[in-house]
């Protein structure tokens, strides 16, 4: 009897290991954790973490920029790994006050940045060697994809974020969409505007896209090709003439995670096929 009790006490004694209960914030971070094969350590995710499908079974602590501190603490994490931009600031500070290690990985829309993000996540999980291996793999994959995507006749691509209310919100310069378009051998049709902006019909006509790129989704943002090209802004464009529209999963296209090579390859093939 006494031996049993003693064993129980031993089992209950706290063993301070950091990173056995990991909360992953941000779709690309979660993807990296799965690619590293460390998914058994995950206890939660944020609402942008939707790939791979198993990840959606984890408790969802909310949107990356609107975390609830008590919600985060309720999954009892001993390590939080997050994309840049987790917030609000107050929530992150409270997590620090509660002594939950909070790691924010580097961000960016270049090959170097993606590889660094992978290394950061692997380092936080104490598996740096796996991180190097994955980084090398992703790098090789992306290089091959980019080489395949090279073309001497780059297409002008307009990334349409939303068509809500008949007004077109498109990707300007310095956006994740522009970065992936360029990696896939296209050029961003929108110039002289930075960020995601609502564009006038004339500005879209002037951008003269050969192809329209959109996220593949349902609900308010779903729009049929017919409706899209019936929009006066597109009437005179090459994209409308050839009915060239490419739809891709948002997290794949703009996530800049380990699937970036796949994103480039898929987009490059779609761009080549579009209008032909």
């Amino acid at each position, binding site marked *: 009897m006494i031996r049993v009790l003693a064993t129980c006490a031993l089992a209950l004694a706290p063993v301070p290991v950091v990173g056995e209960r990991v909360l992953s914030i941000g779709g690309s971070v979660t993807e990296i954790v799965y690619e590293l094969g460390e998914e058994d350590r995950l206890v939660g995710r944020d609402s942008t973490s939707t790939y791979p499908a198993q990840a959606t079974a984890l408790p*969802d602590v*909310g*949107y990356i920029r609107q975390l609830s501190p*008590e*919600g985060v603490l*309720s999954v009892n994490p001993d390590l939080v790994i997050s994309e840049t931009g987790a917030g*609000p600031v107050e929530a992150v500070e409270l997590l620090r006050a*509660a002594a939950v290690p909070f790691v924010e990985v580097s961000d960016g829309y270049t090959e170097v940045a993606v590889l660094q993000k992978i290394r950061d996540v692997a380092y936080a999980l104490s598996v740096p060697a796996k991180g190097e291996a994955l980084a090398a793999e992703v790098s090789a994959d992306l290089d091959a994809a980019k080489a395949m995507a090279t073309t001497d006749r780059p297409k002008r691509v307009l990334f349409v974020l939303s068509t809500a209310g008949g007004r077109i919100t498109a990707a300007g310069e310095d956006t994740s969409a522009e970065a992936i378009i360029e990696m896939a051998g296209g050029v961003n049709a929108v110039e002289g505007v930075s960020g995601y902006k609502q564009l006038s019909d004339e500005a879209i006509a002037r951008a003269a896209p050969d192809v329209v790129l959109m996220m593949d989704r349902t609900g308010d943002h779903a729009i049929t090709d017919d409706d899209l090209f019936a929009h006066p802004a597109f009437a005179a464009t090459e994209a409308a003439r050839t009915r060239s529209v490419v739809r891709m999963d948002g997290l794949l296209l703009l996530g800049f995670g380990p699937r970036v090579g796949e994103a480039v390859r898929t987009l490059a093939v779609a761009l080549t096929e579009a209008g032909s």
Partner: protein
Amino acid sequence: MVALADTTAASRAMTDRGQLARWVMLGLAAALILLCGFSLFVGATGVSPVALMIDLIAGRDIDLRARVVIMDIRLPRLALGLLVGASLAVSGVVMQGLFRNPLADPGLVGVSAGAGLGAILAIVLGGLLPSALGAAMGYALVPIAAFVGGWLSVMALYTVATRGGHTSVATMLLAGIALAALVGAVSGILIYLADDAQLRTLTFWGLGSLAGATWGKVLAAAPLMLIGIVGAPLLARGLNGLALGEATARHMGLDVQRLKRLAVLLVAAAVGAAVAVSGGIGFVGIVVPHLLRLSTGPDHRFLLINAALLGAIILIVADMIARVIVAPAELPIGIVMAIIGGPFFLWILLRRRGILEM
């Protein structure tokens, strides 16, 4: 003179309601105290304040995480909910009394719009501040900017509407609508300039939430909100007089001009500070005063205090729902408020159709 007015036949009919209003006040106060205690038990984590207290009293080492959840998350949130709910409800009563219009709310006199503009300016252009100043303000920047924006817009309206020592309430209402349009346009420009991350911050700020409550915020905003909550009942007799019409009130010996000025300043302080710390939480300022008027009559002596109590109760309850209904994530409280409160208010109106009068 005021005492004379109190003894008129019209007011005598109100004495029964006055009795009722006193009982309602007691009931609300008791409910509020119970709910305050209860709200410390409600949250995504299973942490209990009782266990924490026992540990504290027994002198045991307390779990850091439990301490943070109770002391730094739930308590400041409760305090903020109390203050914001009371501020918004009391401001609603004062505005409706001042404008003698059941639709008046703080939004109409430009406080909310001005405060919103201040917040948006801080979110979008905060990065342009000299870095030393920006660092010193930290995340207090948005609340402070919102308060200053609310304050400035009320002062602007007040100046426009005052001529020869007389403030025209109608001019102020109209100017408020013009100002709201102008502020809306400027906000639109800033939203256009905002980058992706700033846009998302703006969206969530607009929905309203108590999730960002910290002791720093509570302490910064509490004095302003308390001025409004505690100061408003002092205007009760004046507002009662004003309900009979401005001319009558003047004949009763009320300094109507001073009353208007005080009322507007109190509302600016309370709502500016509330919007600053919690974003756009609508609904409380309209519904709480009407619920109370429907049940206990329009006497401001009870109305203002009961509104503070009921406003606090409603906000605390809504916040409890907001933080557990989609746990471990949470809903913005503005959404909870509208979804529960909207239909409830319609139901009340339908049931008691025709009774609504100011």
